[in-house]
């Protein structure tokens, strides 16, 4: 057995539309080790959610057209699994935490019942046993007065509490892999800190693998082991957290890091990346980032750079990588 929990190879997802084809995901490889927290970072529309839904095999087809070489979960190939088989896996081996708890929860069922069901369905516990476990699980994710709160309906809880409930549900059956899609984006800063803390603690305690999806690099600074940076449907850089934050190789990563304001800054100018993310139907030729890149050359306009591996296992998709020998790069 390998150390990999998830091995995804060459995932492609397109959405045919009237005016053309949206290439949402263009050949992505993703490795998640056992007990590892991997972050998938990128801006709105770059294909993060589509990637996670494809791994769970939750994309409706049509409209989505999915092609993939391998979706290997702890040695089991999911590519050709039937819907029924996947249904069984989801919630047991694989589970997901969504950004919008309100749509992920059943509004007319108490949260206690919803968690009970997971225990009952997957482990054949009795109702009484299940409720005991539910209360314990709610307690673990920091829901106060878990016993009485279990009888609340989703709308009676605050956003932070609902997100905790989703975390409790995701961990209920000790899955091997949890995918959390922007789990804290909708929350206030102090609540966001609480929820991330809970998620991180749970992940370490139970040694599950976690795929954390976010558009906010600062969220992963505390949690992720490895980071994948995605731009317009492609991975542009992969590296360990330290490597990525201290010596980013792709100009987009550098730009993202630079544009996050820091408390330690004292200047009155924010470092900016020009223009905006390309429209998914009209991506530029060559490297997708070239129109916004300050290092762009003729070559970049003509050819898509390949993903290049470095000695330390990082990868980058750029003809003019930065910080190649490690260490800090001086300002441009």
């Amino acid at each position: 057995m390998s150390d990999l929990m998830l091995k995804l190879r060459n995932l492609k997802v397109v959405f045919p539309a009237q005016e053309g084809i949206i290439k949402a995901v263009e050949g992505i490889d993703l490795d998640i080790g056992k007990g590892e927290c991997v972050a998938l970072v990128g801006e709105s529309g770059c294909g993060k959610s589509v990637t996670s839904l494809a791994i769970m095999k939750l994309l409706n087809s049509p409209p989505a057209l999915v092609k993939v070489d391998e979706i290997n979960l702890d040695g089991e190939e999911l590519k050709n699994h039937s819907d029924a088989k996947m249904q069984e896996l989801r919630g047991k081996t694989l589970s997901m935490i969504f950004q919008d708890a309100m749509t992920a929860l059943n509004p007319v069922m108490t949260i206690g019942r919803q968690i009970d069901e997971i225990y009952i369905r997957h482990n054949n516990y009795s109702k009484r046993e299940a409720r005991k476990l539910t209360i314990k699980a709610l307690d673990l994710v920091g829901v106060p007065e878990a016993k009485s709160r279990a009888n609340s309906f989703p709308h009676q809880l605050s956003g932070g509490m609902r997100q905790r409930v989703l975390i409790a549900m995701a961990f209920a059956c000790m899955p091997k892999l949890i995918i959390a899609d922007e789990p804290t984006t909708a929350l206030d800063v102090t609540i966001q800190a609480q929820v991330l803390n809970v998620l991180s603690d749970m992940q370490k305690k139970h040694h599950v693998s976690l795929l954390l999806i976010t558009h906010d690099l600062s969220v992963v600074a505390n949690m992720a082991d490895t980071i994948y940076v995605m731009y317009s449907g492609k991975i542009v850089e992969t590296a360990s957290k330290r490597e990525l934050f201290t010596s980013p190789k792709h100009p987009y990563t550098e730009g993202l890091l630079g544009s996050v304001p820091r408390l330690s800054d004292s200047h009155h100018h924010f470092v900016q990346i020009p223009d905006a993310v390309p429209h998914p139907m009209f991506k530029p030729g060559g490297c997708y980032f070239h129109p916004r890149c300050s290092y762009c050359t003729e070559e970049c306009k003509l050819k898509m750079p390949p993903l290049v591996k470095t000695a330390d296992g990082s990868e980058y998709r750029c003809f003019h990588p930065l910080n190649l020998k490690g260490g800090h790069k001086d300002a441009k």
Partner: protein
Amino acid sequence: MPNEAKSIIMELEHLSVDFPVKGALPFQKKRRVQAVTDVSLKIESGETFGIVGESGCGKSTIANAMVGMIRPTEGKVIFKGQDLFALERKLFKEARRDMQMIFQDPFSSLNPRFNVYQIISEPMLIRGKSTPEEMKERVIELLRLVGLSDKDLYRHPSDFSGGQRQRIGIARAISLNPDFLICDEPVSALDVSVHAQILNLLMELQEKLQMTYVFISHNLAVVKNLCDHMIVMYLGKVMESGSTKAIYKNPLHPYTNALLTAVLDVDIDNQKERVILEGDIPSPIDPPKGCRFYQRCPMAMMGCKSIAAPLIEVEPGHFVSCHKVNGFPEPYANEENTRPLDPENE
């Protein structure tokens, strides 16, 4: 900046805003949301004034009261020396033209059926003082100012990215040369990589057009580099106020501290010890009698529950509302009140 005392463009005097809410059940009596309670502040001409706090603390309510869209329950809004809500209709309208607002969501704040020209020229059209030629010229000038071009004149909002839409919203807001601009979370709905563009644009425009800004945000890293003075709010009340420099150098209120450490930092060698607050933000319906923050405060004392915490000047211009910092006022400064709050007794 001239040397003489800076003029005050906007002043709030003991501003309170309540909203009536229905009881959960029909026979229950109406209750009131205390969205903003007793907020006083002064904004200097030409500065950027920050309002910081979490969801529901009353930031947008203050903004709406400043521009005359919400009538205060108590207190005054004084714009350029005049009590805004005491002005006669015509003067009120005129004053409102000098104040504009940029909204958080550039997707819902622009009319999707209008083209860019119609959107930006609408305020001029309503004022009715310009010819169509003048308006068109002005719109093109505005588009250039915000980094768009005359090619965009007849396109519709749906043809633009979030950042570009926010630029259109900014062009519209500055079309009548306001001198007071409120930016209510202007980047939180945008892609991360365009945050900096919009913030830089706002600063550039402020310099060019000599505007005063009120900048509303929950991101303390942004506020730090943008604002001259700021207030930190919690559940409708000011917890701390002062110059941005003083507050960042010496944050006094436990809530300010928690907010500061909750800003996740991309500087991975510099991850600070985070203060993680317990519990949720309570409801502004029937807020606590004492300090509004006591339920989540890591330093709360018994007295914080029932004794209101006045906003007291700790160093010149730096105010904080906290019993831990200021001590209890006289008859309450006893041992019972200063005992740490026992969460079990809650």
